[in-house]
């Protein structure tokens, strides 16, 4: 809350930028134009191009790359990637929401310490955290040793390089990205509203469904986007945890710019993922008509 909220705003911020203002703004705009907009446009151009036998890009116009994206082979991989990303997002939401809620409602002194506990894995390289799971899931690793010792299994489980391992890796890497934005919403939640719901006789389920969830919706939306979108295109975690056995759309894209040397097709796949991203973004941030 700004102390002047509601008062007529007299500060200089209302000024329209003159020539000097635009000159000062120029580096920022130039940077965004050169390294965000231009690359996207060039990728769009490439996605309609062709390539010769040597992998050189031939500038023509054809839809062939896009028809290839919808070839059953690639479509299946794309759908599978969306499916894994959706599972990862769902698990992160179910696992992370209660944590975000509990931390957000904790007394302030404890809250900041707990928040730091979430920030540390958030900032630690996902690569290293994935590597840690490779260590744990190895057939002679600590998880199997523990389960064998407890007598819960008689032969070591082969979890590494399976789809399960991929999901574990994705959930582990993205969980903090779900918890943090929800925490942000929970922290702002007005305690009186929650208490009112309980006082009016709502049980925990009802209070959650009709008061807490709608009020923390912005955090949920942000969390879902921060997990779902990067999870679709992720190739490093799927590579390490799934071996070469669980190819995702990210691995296919990566391959087009590597061994396959088919940049135009890679660009078309990239554009498809970008459209998927834009659609998700639009659907989740669209104003909910039921919210007032």
């Amino acid at each position: 809350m700004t102390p002047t909220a509601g008062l007529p705003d007299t500060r200089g911020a209302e000024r329209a930028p003159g020539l000097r203002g635009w000159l000062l703004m120029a580096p920022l705009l130039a940077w965004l134009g050169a390294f965000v907009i231009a690359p996207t446009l060039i990728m769009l151009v490439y996605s309609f191009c062709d390539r010769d036998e040597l992998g050189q890009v031939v500038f023509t116009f054809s839809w062939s790359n896009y028809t290839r994206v919808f070839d059953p082979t690639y479509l299946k991989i794309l759908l599978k990637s969306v499916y894994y990303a959706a599972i990862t997002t769902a698990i992160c939401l179910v696992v992370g929401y209660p944590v975000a809620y509990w931390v957000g409602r904790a007394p302030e002194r404890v809250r900041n310490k707990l928040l730091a506990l979430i920030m540390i894995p958030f900032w630690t390289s996902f690569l290293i955290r994935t590597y840690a799971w490779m260590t744990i899931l190895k057939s002679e690793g600590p998880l199997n040793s523990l389960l064998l010792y407890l007598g819960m299994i008689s032969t070591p489980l082969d979890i590494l390089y399976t789809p399960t391992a991929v999901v574990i890796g994705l959930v582990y890497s993205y969980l903090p990205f779900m918890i943090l934005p929800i925490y942000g919403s929970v922290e702002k939640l007005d305690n009186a509203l929650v208490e009112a719901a309980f006082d009016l006789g709502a049980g925990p389920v009802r209070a959650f469904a009709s008061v807490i969830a709608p009020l923390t919706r912005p955090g949920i939306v942000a969390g879902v986007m921060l997990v779902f979108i990067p999870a679709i295109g992720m190739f490093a975690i799927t590579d390490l945890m799934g071996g070469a056995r669980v190819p995702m759309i990210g691995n296919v894209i990566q391959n087009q710019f590597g061994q396959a040397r088919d940049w135009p097709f890679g660009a078309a796949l990239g554009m498809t993922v970008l459209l998927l991203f834009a659609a998700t973004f639009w659907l989740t941030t669209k104003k909910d008509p039921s919210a007032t």
Partner: protein
Amino acid sequence: MARKLSGMRLLNLLLGGWSGLVFLFLYIPIVLLIVYSFNASKMAIVWEGFSFKWYTALGREALDHVSGTKRSPLVESAINSVTIASIVTVFSVILGTAGAWLLYRYKFPALRSITTLVYIPMIIPEIIMGISLLIFFKAMSLTLGFTTVIISHITFCFPFVLIAVQARLAGVDPALEEAAMDLGATPMKALFLVMVPYMMPAIISGGLMAFTLSLDEVIVTYFTRGPTSETLPLRVYGLAKVGLSPILNTISAVFIVVTVALTVAAESVKGLNK
């Protein structure tokens, strides 16, 4: 009433218990990795007793590399990473702070579009950013190397500085700057003597964020690096694909400690904001 209260307490207890389990899930792998870095065994995961030998080996490798006795690709990539992250941080801080200040200072119709544009590099899937920049650099016939990695990193790092500073500016009392000018300061003087110090905690925590992000980045770097600009995370990725090794445990442990230190520093600076 009493029954309801105890029900609430029970619910809170359940939530707390669940959160405890999740924290264990988040931390056990990290702690295990650090523990394993002290493992004497050559096999990365069979415990054979406590030892500093992998740290000594890593230290010796670093010394040999620095003194020029024996080139170590690993140490070289670590030096690359720190160099890149430092340059990226300087540029991101300048671009991000200036951007936040100007977006705060001026109001105009395109403001919203520009703000949205700033958010794009933060939320766009990294792989899209990686391949679009790769295609762009090739189309501009730029040789992939340090410059291309640095440009790419600045592009996704500076928005974090911008957002941090913008958040700080959102809470500023306009009287602060006005008072400075009423007391005879020129707009420039008011900016550098009053506003910049006010923004400083956000600038520092944003800068630390940019440094950590650049240091850890894998995907965008994967596409935009050249043969001479291999970074440490990419070297680690290459090694991890081949399999587990004790030296990898050691590097990871060092990496974790560095990240934790940077995070704690960024958070405590941010704490000063209040």
